[in-house]
């Protein structure tokens, strides 16, 4: 018996040592410089590869700018620059835009880029089947003409000063390609190598790229369902960089560690306490202001993100041109809150149900709001729901009193111009200013009008903008050239260099 145990233990030990001995340590390649493979870790896997067919945030992160390009691109600090459009002119009445395309641009399949492809791509976004998030912002486009191979003429039904910005989100597809949900044929510095759903998406450098070639040979997006598993992968060098750190608690492993660099950039994701402005009691502006003033947003932000994140006091993030710090308009002041409640005819407070999505950070924020509002006599009942239920109940049916939700896009203050949007804010003056802003003749005019609109929206306390998420990128200290601001989740990988 003892001898047999000894033999078994010996075999087990040998097996363990054999396994451990083989290539212990990280699995990332040892190539550096232009032959490097960059392993990226993310939680946003694309649902499919076509952002007009419900591909989701993951498509913007992995493919925009890397595999697909638009006529324009949005840089990391929020500026719109020419990309596939070498140049453009707008007519005096602002209804006709003429774009000249870059020459010598080839798709990954070898086909040449022509105006036909641009027309096809824009019409793809506008089609009846399109699930593109940008479809409504491109609605002013009346027609797209292609007088010759390198010229595109877009005719608008009304002025739209944001057209170049909106076009930066339209990926240019090869009109002859098929099955965009599974395959790609773009003009970007990378081509798709392999998409292993649930696991990884790898891109390899396209040597026929028309512009400056990518600084690395291959980029692999590794997808994780669990934030801890993602951080462990970074700690063991299975990935080199995490695009957006999800859990503030895990940061301490990286902040004082010289092997890693933690960057705090600007995101465009806002956490909102959205009131149903059409339904009592939140159809009364005084009640909305009171609730906004009863919640200490600063304390909430620091309890979730510590020293990271920003308070903006409005829907507008700092990277939008019409940003202003409006935190003083509905300041944290419980006695002011009680006064406003009394003025609204609710001196003893009231009760409401808060529909809360079940994923982080909404449950924690909901609990905080509940305890803050209890101090001014307002009773909150937390109703936890799934993302799917949120879409059906809150977004489509508008069957709610108040809810929590994160809004990811930049330049989305324009949602407040639509009285049928889920939060039901209806101020005709604001709608007029926002419509006029879009029809402005200069960006200065647009900025001035949107600032006015935003100030009114905040004065009306249409929603309570709790905080702006930080964009925390954690990378191995050997890496440089990665984007630090998460504008709409785009992640350009072509400048990343691994020492």
């Amino acid at each position: 018996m003892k001898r047999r145990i000894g033999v078994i233990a010996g075999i087990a030990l040998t097996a363990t040592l054999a396994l451990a001995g083989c290539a212990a340590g990280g699995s990332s390649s040892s190539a550096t410089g232009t032959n490097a493979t960059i392993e990226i870790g993310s939680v946003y896997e694309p649902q499919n590869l076509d952002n007009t067919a419900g591909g989701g945030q993951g498509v913007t992160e992995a493919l925009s700018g890397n595999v697909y390009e638009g006529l324009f691109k949005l840089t990391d600090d929020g500026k719109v620059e020419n990309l596939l459009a070498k140049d453009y002119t707008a007519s005096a009445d602002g209804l006709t835009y003429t774009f000249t395309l870059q020459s010598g641009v080839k798709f990954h399949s070898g086909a040449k880029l022509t105006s036909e492809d641009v027309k096809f791509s824009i019409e793809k976004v506008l089609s009846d089947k399109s699930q593109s998030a940008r479809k409504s912002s491109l609605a002013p486009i009346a027609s797209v003409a292609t007088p010759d191979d390198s010229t595109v003429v877009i005719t608008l039904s009304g002025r739209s000063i944001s057209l170049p910005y909106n076009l930066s989100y339209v990926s240019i597809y090869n009109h002859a390609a098929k099955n965009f949900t599974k395959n790609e044929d773009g003009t970007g510095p990378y081509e798709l190598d392999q998409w292993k759903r649930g696991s990884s998406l790898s891109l390899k450098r396209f040597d026929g790229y028309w512009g400056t070639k990518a600084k690395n040979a291959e980029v692999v997006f590794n997808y994780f369902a669990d934030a801890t598993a993602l951080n462990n992968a970074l700690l063991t060098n299975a990935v080199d960089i995490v695009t957006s750190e999800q859990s503030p608690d895990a940061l301490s492993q990286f902040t004082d560690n010289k092997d890693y660099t933690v960057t705090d950039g600007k995101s465009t994701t806002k956490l909102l306490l959205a009131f149903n402005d059409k339904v009592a009691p939140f159809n009364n502006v005084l009640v909305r202001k009171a609730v906004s003033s009863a919640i200490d947003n600063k304390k909430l932000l620091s309890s979730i993100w510590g020293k990271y994140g920003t308070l903006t006091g409005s829907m507008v993030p700092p990277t939008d041109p019409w940003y202003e710090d409006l935190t003083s308009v509905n300041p944290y002041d419980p006695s002011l809150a009680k006064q406003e409640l009394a003025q609204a005819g609710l001196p003893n407070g009231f009760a409401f149900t808060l529909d809360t999505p079940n994923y982080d950070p909404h449950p924690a924020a909901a609990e905080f709001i509940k305890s803050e509002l209890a101090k001014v006599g307002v009773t909150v009942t937390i109703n936890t729901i799934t993302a799917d239920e949120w879409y059906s109940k809150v977004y489509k049916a508008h069957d709610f009193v108040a809810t929590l939700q994160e809004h990811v896009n930049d330049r989305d203050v324009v949602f407040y111009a639509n009285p049928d949007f889920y939060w039901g804010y209806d101020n005709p003056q604001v709608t007029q200013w926002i419509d006029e802003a879009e029809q402005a003749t200069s960006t200065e005019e647009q900025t001035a009008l949107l600032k006015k609109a935003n100030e009114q929206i905040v004065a009306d306390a249409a929603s309570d903008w709790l905080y702006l998420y930080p964009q925390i990128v954690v990378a191995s200290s050997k890496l440089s050239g990665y984007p630090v601001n998460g504008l709409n989740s785009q992640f350009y990988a072509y400048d990343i260099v691994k020492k």
Partner: protein
Amino acid sequence: MTTYLLRRLLFLVVTLFLAMAVLFVLLRLLPGDPANALLSLGATPQQIAAAQARVGADQPVLTQFGTWIGQLVRLDFGTSYISDLPVGPEIAARLVVTVPLTLIAFLLAVIVAVPVGFIAACRSRRWYGLALSALSQLGIAVPVFWIGVLLITAFALQLRVLPAGGFPRDDWADPLDAIRSLALPVITVAIVMSASITRYVRSAVLDVLGSDYLRTSRALGATFSSAMWHHGLRNASVPVISILGIELATTFLGAVVVENVFALPGLGSMLLKAIAQHDYPDIQGILFVSTFAVLVIGFLADLAQRLVDPRLRENVSGNLSDGGRRS
């Protein structure tokens, strides 16, 4: 024997069909809309309608079911509503991870748990028998993800001898690499499985130890080992085989927590995601495969029990060999 096999095959097909019919109807009765996963904030009412048309919720349920069964007999599982990828090849890609994980963990658990359970039963009054029993209780009580996290912290983060998670991109092209990725998940699953199996083995062996026939055998002069080998073990293994079948079947999909902790692209995490998004083709495909697996495992367990226990066998007329009659 052939009638038995044919009967079992018929049973398998009918059960599978009924299970799939129930699943199909239930999925469509539950609240929730597959189209929601395709939408974004800012989707217009027209886009909402287009998404619903795309997921094909417009046809009557019976027609949808007929189409699906027609596809199934050709082993065509259809296409995912969300990813537009064919369901069959994707399930196959996930099985490449889940099947080895489940089988190796199962083998490891059986190799460890059966002797341990046996010792815990035979030496139930000695200190080490009690200790083994207590250890198995602990193994059942501790959550599986905690064991996983502990193993990751020790072997991946501190000692750096195994990866913290993930599975090689080229699957089993480099078998050693794949085994290294599966090592910690396999041990995690095996620990929990063996704790459970130990308890059942211990209980079955204790039953046998107290039995009349064992005492009679000893009284007639057999040694303890001989009595156990010829009489005891076969009797003890019948309930244990049932349990082994159940453990194997539940781990197939139940390893989803381990898959998340170790970032493994397995079947459980595919199912979880599909359920959250109401991706009916994915859900139906995965549940078909797993129901089939459960039925096959059940059949194999049944066969094994018949091999072990002659009283469970039938002769041609349907009479049991102990004189009873199976209806």
